[in-house]
C-alpha cells in the first residue's frame, strides 16, 4: 500500500496536533469537557480532605475541645455536596469528551469516504480493498478517540497527580513522598505493558486473520474440500493457524498479568508505608489521625487514575500511528481530477476520437499497453474491437471515461479533449459496461437506476426490456423490488451482465462501451439485445469489445488490436478478404463447427 507510516517524533506530534484541531471543530463540547474535568478532579481532591477533617473533628469532639456538633454537620453536608458536584461534573466530563470523539469520528468518516470515492483507479489498483477497510474501520476508530483517552485524561491526571501530589507534599513532604511513591512504579509498568500489548495486538490480529482466512476459504471452498476428501488436511491447516494464535494469546495474558500484579502490590506497599510512618507520626503527636486518614483516602482515589497512565501513553502512541496512516491516506491527491478551468462537456455530434494515444499503467510506466492508437467513431457508428488477451482492449475502454489518463496523445469527445472537461459531465456522457459486474445489495430497480436514481418506472422497464432482463425480473415474486443476493434470487452470470447493460443504458450515454459484457449471455439473447439497441444506436457511438466474433460481426468497423496497436481494421467482410489475423481467428472459432450462421 502506498501509504507510509510517520515514524518520526515530529511526524507523530504533527498527527496529534491535526487530531486536536479536528477535535477543536466542536469548540463548545471541548470547552465543557475540559472545564468539567477540572471541576470534577478538584472535587475529587477535596473529598479526602473533608474526610480527614471529619475524623479530626470527631477526635476533638471526643476530647471535648470542640463543643458543637455543628462542625461535623457542616463537614457532612460538604461531603454530600462535593460528592454530588463531582458526580454531575464527572458525567459532563465523560459525556462531552465522548461527544467530541463521536464528532471527530463523523468528520474523519466523511472525509475518508469521500477520499475513497475521489481517488482514481490507479490508486485502487495498487491497494488491497481489505487494507482500505481496515484503515477506515480500525485505524480510524483508534485515532478518533484521542480526545477522551488522550487529552482529557491528560488534564485529569495532571490535576490529580500534580495538584493532589503538591497538596500532600505541602502537608507533610515525607509522608507525601511515600504516598506518591507508587505513582512512578505504576505509571512505568502500566505504560510498558500497554505498549507491549499494543505491539502484540497487531501481531495477534495478523495471526487471527490467518486463522480466519483458513476457515473462510475452507467454508467458501467446501466443495473442493469435500471433492478431494481433504477434511484431515484442512484440520491440519486449522490446527497450525490456531496454535499459532493461541500461543500469542497466552503470551498476552502473561504481559497483562505481570504488570497488573506489580501495580497493585506497589500501591498497597505504599499504603502500608504511609500507615507505618504516618502512624508513628501520629503517636509522636506530629500529625492528626484525620490527616493520616486523608492521606490514605487520597491514595485510594489516586489509584485508578494512576493505573490509567498506561492508557494515556497508549492513546498517544495509538493516535500517532493510526492517525498518521489515516492522514497519509486523506492527504493523497487523486491522479485524475477536474482541472481548474474544467468546463462541462458540451454534447454535439457524438463523435469519439482517439488521437495518437499512448498508454502505460502508472505502476508499470515502461510497459506500454497502447501505442499510437488513432481512430474516429461518429454518431450512429458501431466499432468492434477484438484482439488476443493483453492486447489493450479493456484498457482502451477505461481511458474514455478517464478512469486513467493517456500517457501521450489525446481523446476527444465531440471535439473537446476529455481532460479539459469536468469528470462528472464526461462520465454522464460515457458508459462502460464492464465484464465483471458489481451489483449492490439492494433492489433490482435501485441497481438499474444506479446512475439515474430519479428515473421513472417506465424508463427502468424500457432499458430492462432492451437488455432482455425485464421478463426475468417480472417473473420474480417481488419483481423489481427483489433484493439482489437474497435467497432464491441469485442471478446467473448472464443475468448479471444483462443487469449491467440495463444500468448503463438508463442515462442515455453518447458513448456506450461494451467491454466483453455479453460473454456470459447466450448467443440468441445477445442477438435480441443487439436488435433492441439498434433504435437508440443512431444517437450514440457504440464500442463493442469481445472475444466472440459473432458479438461484433455487425459492427461498422472492426479494429484488430495486438500489443496495443491496431494491426487490421475494416468491416467483417473486408477483414475476411484481407486474410490476416482476423481471418485466422475467424477460422479458429469456426473450425470444426459446421454450424451455420457464423
Amino acid at each position: 500500500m502506498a501509504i507510509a507510516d510517520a515514524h518520526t517524533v515530529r511526524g507523530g506530534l504533527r498527527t496529534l496536533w491535526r487530531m486536536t484541531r479536528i477535535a477543536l471543530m466542536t469548540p463548545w463540547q471541548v470547552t465543557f469537557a475540559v472545564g468539567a474535568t477540572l471541576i470534577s478532579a478538584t472535587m475529587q481532591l477535596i473529598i479526602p480532605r473533608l474526610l480527614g477533617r471529619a475524623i479530626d473533628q470527631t477526635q476533638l469532639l471526643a476530647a471535648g475541645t470542640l463543643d458543637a456538633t455543628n462542625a461535623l454537620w457542616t463537614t457532612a453536608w460538604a461531603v454530600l455536596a462535593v460528592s454530588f458536584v463531582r458526580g454531575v461534573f464527572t458525567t459532563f466530563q465523560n459525556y462531552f469528551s465522548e461527544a467530541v470523539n463521536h464528532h471527530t469520528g463523523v468528520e474523519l468518516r466523511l472525509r475518508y469516504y469521500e477520499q475513497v470515492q475521489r481517488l482514481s483507479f490507479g490508486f485502487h489498483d495498487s491497494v488491497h480493498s481489505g487494507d482500505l477497510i481496515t484503515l477506515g474501520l480500525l485505524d480510524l476508530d483508534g485515532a478518533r478517540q484521542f480526545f477522551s483517552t488522550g487529552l482529557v485524561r491528560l488534564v485529569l491526571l495532571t490535576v490529580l497527580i500534580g495538584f493532589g501530589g503538591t497538596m500532600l507534599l505541602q502537608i507533610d513532604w515525607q509522608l507525601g513522598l511515600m504516598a506518591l511513591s507508587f505513582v512512578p512504579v505504576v505509571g512505568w509498568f502500566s505504560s510498558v505493558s500497554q505498549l507491549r500489548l499494543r505491539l502484540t495486538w497487531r501481531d495477534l490480529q495478523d495471526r487471527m486473520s490467518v486463522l480466519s482466512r483458513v476457515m473462510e476459504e475452507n467454508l467458501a471452498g467446501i466443495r473442493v474440500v469435500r471433492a478431494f476428501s481433504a477434511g484431515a488436511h484442512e484440520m491440519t491447516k486449522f490446527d497450525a493457524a490456531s496454535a499459532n494464535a493461541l500461543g500469542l494469546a497466552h503470551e498476552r495474558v502473561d504481559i497483562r498479568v505481570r504488570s497488573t500484579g506489580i501495580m497493585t502490590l506497589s500501591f498497597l506497599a505504599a499504603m502500608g508505608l504511609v500507615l507505618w510512618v504516618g502512624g508513628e507520626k501520629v503517636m509522636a503527636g506530629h500529625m492528626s489521625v484525620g490527616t493520616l486518614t486523608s492521606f490514605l483516602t487520597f491514595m485510594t482515589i489516586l489509584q485508578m487514575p494512576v493505573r490509567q497512565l498506561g492508557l494515556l501513553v497508549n492513546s498517544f502512541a495509538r493516535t500517532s500511528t493510526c492517525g498518521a496512516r489515516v492522514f497519509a491516506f486523506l492527504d493523497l491527491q487523486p491522479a485524475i481530477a477536474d482541472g481548474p478551468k474544467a468546463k462541462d462537456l458540451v454534447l454535439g455530434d457524438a463523435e469519439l476520437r482517439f488521437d495518437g494515444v499512448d498508454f502505460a499503467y502508472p505502476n508499470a510506466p515502461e510497459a506500454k499497453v497502447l501505442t499510437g492508437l488513432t481512430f474516429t467513431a461518429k454518431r450512429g457508428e458501431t466499432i468492434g474491437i477484438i484482439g488476443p488477451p493483453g492486447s489493450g482492449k479493456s484498457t482502451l475502454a477505461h481511458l474514455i471515461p478517464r478512469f486513467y489518463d493517456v500517457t501521450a496523445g489525446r481523446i476527444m469527445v465531440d471535439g473537446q479533449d476529455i481532460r479539459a472537461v469536468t469528470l462528472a459531465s464526461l462520465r454522464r456522457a460515457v458508459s462502460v459496461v464492464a465484464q465483471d459486474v458489481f451489483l449492490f445489495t439492494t433492489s433490482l430497480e435501485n441497481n438499474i437506476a444506479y446512475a439515474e436514481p430519479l428515473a421513472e418506472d417506465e424508463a427502468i422497464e424500457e432499458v430492462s426490456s432492451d437488455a432482455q432482463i425485464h421478463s426475468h425480473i417480472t417473473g420474480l415474486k417481488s419483481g423489481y423490488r427483489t433484493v439482489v443476493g437474497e435467497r432464491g434470487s441469485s442471478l446467473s452470470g448472464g443475468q448479471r451482465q444483462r443487469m449491467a447493460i440495463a444500468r448503463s443504458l438508463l442515462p442515455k450515454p453518447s458513448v456506450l462501451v461494451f467491454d466483453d459484457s455479453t460473454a456470459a449471455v447466450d448467443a440468441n439473447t445477445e442477438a435480441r439485445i443487439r436488435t433492441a439497441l439498434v433504435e437508440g444506436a443512431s444517437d450514440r457511438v457504440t464500442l463493442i469489445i469481445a472475444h466472440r466474433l459473432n458479438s461484433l460481426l455487425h459492427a461498422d468497423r472492426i479494429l484488430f488490436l495486438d500489443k496495443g496497436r491496431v494491426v487490421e481494421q475494416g468491416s467483417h467482410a473486408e477483414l475476411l478478404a484481407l486474410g490476416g489475423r482476423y481471418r485466422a481467428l475467424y477460422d479458429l472459432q469456426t473450425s470444426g463447427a459446421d454450424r451455420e450462421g457464423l
Partner: protein
Amino acid sequence: MTNQSSTQDYQSDRESAAGAPTLRAVVGSHRIEEEMFGKVFDPQIIKRIGFFVKPYRREFIISVVAVLIFTVTQLMIPMIIRYAIDWGVIPGNIGLLHAALIVFAVVISINYGASHVQETVVGKAAENVLFDIRRAMFAHLQDVSLSFMDKTEVGRLMSRLQGDVGSMQEFLETSVLSVGDIVLLFGIITLMLYLDVQLGLITLSVMPVLFIARIFWLPMAREAFIKAHETNSAVNGALAEGIHAVRTVQGMGREALNARLYGDKVMANLGTNLWASKIAQVLVPVVDTMTGFAMALVVVLGGAKLLGHTLDVGVMVAFLFFIQRFFDPIRSLTIQYSVMQRAMASGQRLIEVLDVDVSVKDRPDAVDIGETDGSVEFRDVTFGYDKQQMVLKDLSFRVEPGQTVALVGPTGSGKSSAMSLIHRFYDVTEGQILVGGHDVRDVTQASLGRQIAMVLQEPFLFTGSVLENIRYNKEDATREQIIAAATVLGADPFIRALPQGYDTVLGERGGSLSTGQRQLLSFARALVADAKILVLDEATASIDSATEQMIQRALAILLKGRTGLVIAHRLATVRNADKIMVLQAGRLVESGTHAELISNGGLYAGLYRANYASFDDVEAPA
C-alpha cells in the same frame, strides 16, 4: 422473518419520498442483526458449554479458590488499617502497630500471589476453551451435509466461529471474577455489620437504592447500546460497499449522492451514539451522590457515637474505605448479568452449529473400497434435496471404465446433482449408485474420495503457493510430479512466468490469475490427485479462443485412461465424448453419440441447431 423486515424497511424508504419523484438510492445493504441478548441462564446451554470447560476443570477450580483468597485479602486491608489505628496509633502502642504492619505485609503478598494465579490461570484456560469450541465447530462443519452448507452464508458461519466464540470467552473470564464480586459484596456487608451494627445498617440503606437504580437503568442502557451498535454496523457496511464498488461508483458518477447518503447514515449513527453515551453516564451522579450520602452519614452518626464512646475512630476510617468500594461489586455484577445474556445468545447459536445433522456418515461396517475398475453405475436413482421436490427421477445409466460421458441439459435438469451423488455428497432417496461395483454407502467416504477426482465449475484456489494449490491434500506428491502435471497440461509456461514460478503465493482466490489459468491449475490439481474417475463441471465463463483451445487439449489429457463424467457446456467437449446423455427435468431423455443424437432429431438436436453458445444458459422449456 428476515425477508419480511428487509422488505418493510425498503418500502418505508420509498414511501418517505411520497409526492416527490422516488429516489432509488441507498448506500450499504440492510443487514439483519442477530439477537444480542438471550435468557440469563439456560441450563441446557451451560451444560453443553460445560463440556468444553471440563478438560480445564482443575484450572477453573484453582481460579475460583484464588479469587476467593484475593477477595478476602482485599476485605482485610481496611480492617488492618482499623486495628492499626485503634489498637496501635490511638493508644500509642507501637508494638501493635508494627504487628499490624507485618500482617499487612503478609496480606498484600498473598493478595499479589492470588491475583497473579487467578488472572493467569483463568485467562489462559478461557482462551483454551474458546479455541477448543472453535475447533469442534470447524471440525463439525467438515462433516455436516452439503445441503446445510449450500444454504448457509459463509459470513454467518464466520460470525459463529469468531464473534459468538468470543463472547463465550468473555463470559468464562468474568464468571470467575463474579464469584469474587459476590463474596466481596457480602464481605463488605458482613464486616460493616460486624464493626458496628447500627452504623452498618444505616449506611447500607443506600445499597438497595444503588441496586434498584442500576436495575432500572439496565434495559434502557441496553436498548441504547443495541441501537448504537446497529447504526455502527450500517455505517461500516456502507463504507465497505463504497470501497468494493468504487469503480462502479465512479463510472456511474454517483460520488456526490453517495457521499450525501453516507453522510445521513453517519449522522444517524452520531445520534444513537450520543444517546448511548448520555445513558451510559446518567447513573454517575446518582452513584457519587449516594456514596457521598453514605459518607456523610458515617461522619455525622459516627461522630455522635464516637462522642458517646461507643465507636472507635479506626472503625470510622474503615467504614469510609468500605463505602468507597461499595459500588464496585454492584457494577461488575450487573455488567456480568449482560455478559451472561450475551453469552447465552451466542451459546445458543454455537450449539445450533454443533448440532447440525451429519446426514452422510460412514456406516459402522463400511469397508475400504480398495482398487476399482473405475466404472460408475446409477440404478433407478431418485433424489431430492427435500422430500417434496425430486431433482432426479429413476435415473439409470452405466459408464464403463475409461469411457467419457458428457452430460448436457438445460439449467435445473439435475446434471450437477447427479454428479454430486457419485462422490456421495448427498445420499440417494431411492435406488443406488455403484462405483467399481460397490454401493457408495457401503464403503468409507475417505476411500471413495481416493477413487474420484473432481473439477468444479468455479476453480477454487487457496491462499498459498502454486505448488501447494496443485498438490493440495496429496501430500506425498513431489515437486517433480507437480511440475510434470502442470507441463503436460500446458500450464508450465505461465507458471514459470510468475514472479517466483511455482512458489509464487497466489492472492485471494488466485485473483492475480486469469480465468483460464485458474482452470488449468484446478485441472492440474485433479491430475496430481490421480484418481480412476474424473467428475468435471465445465466452466461457463467465456475465455478467448487461444486459451479455450489450450483447455480443450488439457481436458483430453486429463481424461486419458480415466472414467470421465463431464457436465459439458462447450460444443467441442460434447463432441469429443464417447457418449452424450441429455437430461431434462431430472430424467434421462436421450443418450448416444453426437451423430446418433443429431439424426434422432430430439432435444439435443434442437438445442444444437438453435445455435446456443452454451447449453446451460437455455431457459428450461416449460
